[in-house]
């Protein structure tokens, strides 16, 4: 770890009390007097100091370590909790302003297929994005709602700054929905995927065997290129499926094609958690599902997140498919803990596990990581806690949204019609 040079005295002179500064630029700063959930092997550090320079975390140590540092600002967390910014996943944030206003809704397309790239429809100014920041969410893996095909297209990564350049990576994964089929047999859907992967594998084998064939081969279709990137393990194959028998069928596909598999939904995964753990497949679940919504999900239960973790499965918590209330993610984690999930595992399920699964450079408080950091006034899973400050790449973010403007308008006394209160 890089040794800091300046004295603690200089530090306290530069000290700024929590809540008194405006939205800071990417200055250097240190967060002091915090309990830091690092989401790393360092675990939880009491009375810690986190130093950020140029948007990157440069030091995470207990105050007792006695290091010195030279920063523009000191943020006294006043004994609060610091976590990595939470990372949402498999939702449609930013693709929708109002779901039922079809002109403002770009998550779904009848013709969506494996090539569908919904990132072209992303609006960083969607009003739900600022609202989502209230939940301490700093990055998000966006997906589409799909169309008529088994393929919903490709996921993409955003930060929640709401800035014009907030799409950080596109085509980060390929999303497929299998299982219950309203129009026909679920078997056809799985067969379609198998056929696609077999075709891709054959084409890869042919190319590597015969150099001339490679030279003569026509320019590959976009869909073929994407299949290849799944087979090479470059892109995760994200499969939404609930029934245990379907999950087992997909685990066989992983074995056969050696794909980088991620399960989504997985209502009845708890029945076969050992097999999933053994196959080393992460599972993205909604911790609040506990009703037998269909014959595919008879074993939905609030204890499932904890049980999967205990069985050795890497768990990611998500409110899949949501557009407007993704901010509730931290409460889902609280409910998972209330129903048996290890607390630190629940923190990991909102942070480092998402980062690992989707290859995101974020999700932990460690040296070298982007400073995606949230300061809470208490347990981040509790209703009584809220975001005190949050940073994305070291830049402070507001948690205010148009909802706050509306509340202020209607709670500010005025003799004039409310329309004059801005």
């Amino acid at each position, binding site marked *: 770890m890089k040794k800091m040079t300046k004295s603690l005295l200089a530090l306290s002179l530069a000290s700024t009390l929590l809540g008194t500064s405006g939205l800071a630029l990417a200055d250097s700063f240190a967060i002091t007097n915090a309990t830091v959930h690092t989401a790393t092997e360092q675990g939880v550090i009491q009375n810690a100091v986190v130093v950020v320079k140029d948007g990157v975390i440069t030091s995470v140590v207990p105050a007792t370590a006695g290091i010195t540092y030279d920063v523009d600002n000191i943020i006294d967390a006043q004994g609060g909790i610091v976590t990595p910014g939470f990372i949402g996943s498999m939702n449609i944030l930013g693709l929708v302003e109002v779901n039922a206003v079809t002109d403002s809704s770009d998550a779904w397309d009848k013709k969506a297929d494996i090539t569908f790239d919904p990132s072209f429809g992303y609006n960083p100014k969607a009003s739900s994005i600022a609202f989502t920041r209230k939940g301490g969410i700093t990055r998000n893996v966006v997906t589409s709602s799909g169309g008529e095909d088994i393929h919903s297209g490709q996921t993409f990564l955003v930060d929640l700054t709401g800035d014009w350049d907030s799409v950080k990576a596109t085509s980060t994964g390929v999303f497929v929905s299998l299982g219950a089929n309203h129009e026909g047999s679920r078997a056809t859907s799985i067969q379609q995927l198998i056929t696609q992967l077999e075709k891709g594998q054959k084409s890869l084998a042919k190319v590597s065997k015969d150099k001339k064939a490679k030279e003569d081969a026509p320019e590959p279709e976009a869909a073929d290129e994407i299949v290849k990137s799944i087979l090479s393990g470059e892109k995760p194959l994200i499969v939404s499926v609930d029934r245990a028998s379907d999950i087992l069928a997909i685990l066989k596909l992983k074995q056969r094609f050696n794909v980088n598999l991620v399960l989504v939904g997985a209502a009845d995964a708890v029945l076969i958690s050992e097999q999933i753990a053994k196959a080393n497949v992460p599972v993205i679940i909604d911790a609040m599902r506990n009703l037998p*919504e*269909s*014959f595919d999900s008879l074993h939905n239960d609030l204890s499932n997140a904890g049980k999967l973790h205990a069985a050795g499965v890497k768990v990611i918590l998500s409110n899949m498919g949501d557009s407007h209330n993704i901010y509730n993610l931290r409460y889902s984690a609280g409910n998972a803990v209330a129903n048996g999930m290890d607390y630190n595992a629940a923190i990991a399920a909102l942070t480092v596990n998402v980062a690992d699964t989707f290859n995101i450079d974020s999700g932990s408080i460690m040296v070298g990581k982007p400073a995606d950091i949230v300061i809470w006034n208490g347990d981040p899973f509790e209703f009584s806690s*809220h975001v005190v400050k949050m940073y994305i790449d070291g830049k402070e973010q507001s948690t205010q949204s148009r909802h706050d403007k509306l509340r202020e308008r209607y709670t500010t006394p005025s003799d004039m019609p409310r329309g004059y209160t801005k």
Partner: protein
Amino acid sequence: MTKMMPSLVMIAVTTALVGCNQSETQDPKVTINKNPYPSTYQVLPSTKTIIKNATVLTGTGEKLENADVIMIDGKINAVGENLTADGATIIDAQGKWVTPGIIDVHSHLGVYPSPNAESHNDGNEMTNPITAEVWAEHSVWPQDPGFNRARAGGVTTMQILPGSANLIGGRGVTLKNVPSESMQAMKFPDAPYGLKMACGENPKSLYGSRSELPMTRMGNMAGYRQAFIEATEYKRAWDKYEADYAAGKNAVAPKRDLTLDTLKGVLEGEILIHNHCYKAEEMVMMIDLGKEFNYHSGTFHHAIEAYKIADTLAENGNCAAMWPDWWGFKLEAYDMVLENVAIVDAVKNSCAVVHSDSPVTIQRLNQESAKIMHNANASGFNYTEEQAISWITVNAAKSLGIADKTGSLSVGKNADVVIWNVNPFSVYAKAEQVFIDGAKVFDHQDTRYQAQSDFLLGQE
């Protein structure tokens, strides 16, 4: 038309005869059975019980520390410190919290049950914009596993409503959350019926897409008004029949109309309005609609913009039933504020209710209220647990017209009680024991008190 003439003459003759002969024999009086599917609810086995040393939220705005609650013969017998009850089962609730049973004024459990399947889509009679003739109770599947889940979340009473596809969607029914093979055995005795009405986007978009009225919001209003004009005439005809019969005349009863029976019940104040209505301007019109036809406009459900007209709602005695944070799914749900319930509740004589409309969140109405309380307090309000619990207990009971029976831990009321492991406004809170009319219906620790639906029994 010519065929009608002789009978019209006959009626005129009959009327004339009746008019001048008071002693003429009357036909048996035609009366309408207002309760043809009566409650068969029976209290589950119970014992005299005392809950000791709990933090008690009474539902009436009080928070009592180290307090005891005594339940005898299905009623709240006493609430206070250092109580004793001879021969009572003692529950040590040290460190635990006690609240009234949770009430949800807006549920579709049983009518849109789990599993979700076409065979189970029984909540919306989407065949006519006015379907006051349908009763949600006739669609209730008592084996919906959601009832058991809701009970584990402390829900003791809930109103099951038809959906919001129609301007007037039909009657809702208030149920006690006990496992049963029949709807009648869940039916809350003597609870008034509700009538589901719907403003805004749902009815106009459904029927508009079929090029039928209503296609617009003005079409919506025309639809309600036409229905209540007919109901007013129907009521007038029945009132006249009643008066004439009472005067000894052998009057002819009006032809019975199932749709208008229900609307007449509204005009007579026997059936309470439960109106799906998001927007401020629509709620204000619905209040006037009630005044136009001389009925009370009741409770506004999903009242996302209630905060804009909180004073008007309180002045007119309307409850507003709200979510903490649902928004954005429709344009009429765009102007959500997290402090909606708090702003409505802050007005004198208000009636702020938190509802679910969801088989998921009905299980955690305590958490839904916690979100509101803490978000509001972060924005400058100063709500306490003893105030916030009213949103899902006493105010909900008021909305359903059963506040004289349940909704608070007042002596003499039904012993509908929840014991929570910790402060129910914590994300880690769980209902440990739930009582309906003094009988234990759920115990977190004891599988004998964890009912399971027939549907889930034996599933692998």
